[in-house]
């Protein structure tokens, strides 16, 4: 029998990490405020063509020596989004929050002397960091800044829940979690989960935008933020992109998890509640991808499947840790 002291925790780092998380939340809240103003009052501006928008919309007015005449057949409405200078500032503020988030996770890892995702609190924080990273990526790559408010709302909710109810002091892990599979398996699920979150946020935005479009088609007037969203096709594509990224990672995460389970518990799959629910999420996202290739299912129906998919990911995280007893209940 040997005993160890829990004194391995580096107190300076621990308190730095606790300060950083509060700073990060405040920063995100400021960014959310700015994004919301942009969404509500920004000038509806046509987005430049890019990897997610058909080319050629602006080709007619381009003129060069080549005089290339482009004709793109697209059934889509023009992609417009509310924009103003505040949005850019919001993006900068979000980036600052992201940097604070990275610092928070690093200091927490240093404080505990291990990979900083070993309990629910750390998991939530990492998930939110990935979601914000996804938002930044989408903003720079796809000009999808308009998603800012929609992504930051769940991020702030989750962070609030994390700080208020899930917080534990940094410390070592129970033996079952001491494995190099933590960085592999858990990182994969965190990355996938964060991307699913962005996808779900874009999906919800899509559903609102789609409804706006339907109402407009019926001649109704739609005002407010709902009336100023970008075209549903664009939102759908962003949402789909993030699932394309996340689904293989989730698959890999499940496989890595079963290899770990095989090492730790002597079976690679035992229908433990956590395993059941990650399987359910996997099947739902597979159904989402299928629905997009099935006649009559593309559009809102497929997007609902996507949203349900993220709901199962969250359910898996919160409910399974608290409601069920299983090998995975580390709460």
């Amino acid at each position, binding site marked *: 029998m040997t005993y160890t002291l829990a004194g391995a925790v580096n107190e300076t780092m621990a308190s730095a990490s606790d300060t950083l998380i509060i700073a990060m939340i405040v920063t995100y809240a400021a960014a959310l405020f700015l994004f919301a103003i942009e969404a509500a009052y920004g000038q509806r501006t046509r987005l430049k063509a890019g990897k997610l928008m058909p080319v050629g919309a602006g080709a007619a007015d381009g003129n060069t020596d080549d005089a290339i005449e482009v004709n793109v057949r697209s059934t889509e409405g023009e992609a417009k989004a509310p924009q103003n200078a505040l949005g850019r500032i919001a993006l900068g503020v979000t980036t600052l929050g992201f940097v604070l988030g990275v610092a928070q996770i690093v200091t927490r890892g240093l404080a505990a002397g291990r990979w900083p995702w070993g309990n629910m609190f750390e998991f939530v924080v990492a998930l939110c960091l990935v979601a914000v990273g996804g938002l930044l990526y989408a903003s720079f*790559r796809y000009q999808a800044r308009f998603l800012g408010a929609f992504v930051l709302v769940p991020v702030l909710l989750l962070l609030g829940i994390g700080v208020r109810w899930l917080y534990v002091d940094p410390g070592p892990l129970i033996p079952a979690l001491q494995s190099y599979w933590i960085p592999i398996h858990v990182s994969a699920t965190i990355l996938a989960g964060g991307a699913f979150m962005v996808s779900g946020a874009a999906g919800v935005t899509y559903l609102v935008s789609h409804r706006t479009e339907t109402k407009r088609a019926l001649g109704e007037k739609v005002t407010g933020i709902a009336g100023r969203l970008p075209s549903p096709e664009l939102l759908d594509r962003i949402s789909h992109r993030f699932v394309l990224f996340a689904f293989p990672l989730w698959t890999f995460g499940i496989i890595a998890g079963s290899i770990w389970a095989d090492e730790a518990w002597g079976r690679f799959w035992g229908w433990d509640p956590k395993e*059941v629910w990650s399987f359910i999420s996997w099947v739902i996202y597979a159904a989402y991808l299928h629905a997009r290739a*099935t006649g009559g299912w593309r559009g809102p129906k497929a997007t609902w499947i996507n949203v349900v998919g993220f709901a199962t990911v969250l359910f898996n995280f919160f409910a399974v840790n608290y409601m069920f007893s299983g090998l995975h209940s580390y709460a």
Partner: protein
Amino acid sequence: MSTGKDDTAAPVAATREDNTGRPKGLGPTGWLRWAWRILTSMRTALILLFLLAVGAIPGSFLPQNVVSVEEVNTYFREHPELAPWLDRFYLFDVFSSPWYAAIYLLLFVSLAGCVIPRAITHARAVRARPVQTPRNLGRMPYAARFTTDADPETVLDRARGVLKGYRTERYGDSVSAETGYLREAGNVLFHLALLGLLLALAAGAFFGYRGNLLLVEGDGFANTLTSYDAIYPGHWTDTDDLEPFTVHLDDFEASFIEDGDLRGQAESYVADLTYRESPEDEQARHRLEVNHPLSVGGVQVYLLGHGYAPEFEVRNADGEVVFDQPVPFIHRETRSFTSDGVVKVPDTGDEEQLGFVGVFLPSAVETEDGELISDFPGARNPQVTLEGYRGDLGLVDPQSVYQLRTTGMEELGSSPVLEMGDTWRLPDGAGSITFSGYSEYVSLQVNRDGARLPALAAASLAVLGLLVTLFVRPRRVWVRAVTGEDGRTTVELAGLGKTEAAGDNAEFHELTTELAQRLRNASEGPDAEGPESGPDPHTPQDPSGSTTTRE
């Protein structure tokens, strides 16, 4: 040729739109064909996927026999009315129930029926040449047109250079190009790998076994049926012919966090083993830890848990030692490791047998109100309390080693709190029992599952296939070059993507600008003037700014 045209014109999803119109008066084969078509349609696959997900839900809310038989038994005790009904629908065995099997088997039949014909079509398509160039390129989702001084042959030649990674074919005044064949292959690979995964899992379940046992420090076991406390063989497992290894537990050590919030949480478990793969083999050593199983003879041995086995020495009325061994106790929870156990002494030298129900406290302390509890899982101050019984243990019937059947027995009362070395003299001169020390034990799981590696291989192939499916974009490009009346060459470039329009169109546009650029460079020759004909093809004068995505 006309099929090629249809193929190019129809959006991908539409070809999959299923024709499920009911056959009228077609006879049994017609109906069968109709049923098959329904079963292998995407819509059915979608519904079956949903059922697969929904059907799994009760498997997480209700206790499952695969996870824990004890929990199922508890549920039966707590819900005596409801439980038998649930059981009738296999709700405690969801994942091995006939209805769940029906869902996944239908899904996999549907999958095979859907994917295999696709694989065959695809195999043909891979060998075919790119399709004929359609007459009217302007109708394609992406179409661009420009004029150049270069002659048509040069244009087509350069076009082939631009279309890197495409398979190209010359048709008269045009080049037809296609790429992304791998996507279909990836899709087929993914689905077939899932099928393979299912087969591997089934095979593993039929031929493997899983067994549990307890091993006290200083003890060993041989891998035979009788060594196990519980063993779960597959349908076709030959349990008389298990791998002949032996394992001996030399030492076990658990360490716990001493203080702070996490006080009492386990920090590590280590079991030192010596083992032989077979009686003829050399002895080897292994440090068994939670994430570090022993692999011996194709079988895995895992450390599942641990506990205390207090040692008792029992003497009969005449003072002879009739019992002297460690007895595994089961802990109630892990923070205090307060453990319960039963000592059965069947042979005392006279006809009365002895039985004891004991509680073991590894770190005994007295609370303010005088209650004795354990406040730490490590053995800092081990103490035991016992209740004694005398009479018939009832061992003729099979019974659990953790329960004492007291119906045929007379109570002897409770012991004082025993520290190590203390002895309790039983009333009426019935003898004595000494708490002489303690050992630790480990609970082990022994597993043979031949499916592990095939299942891993199938799953990895599935991921590979999935990545290919999701990220390879099949697309077709045509370039036509015709000399116009003014002597200049009109170049048309058209593109058709099968997946996502926007990204494809952006790429087609890059192809156009690059082709235009190269032609201009070619016609102007090496000593061309003007900064706009700079050699970098990646910064074309882009009319729409389409290739830049930043603001």
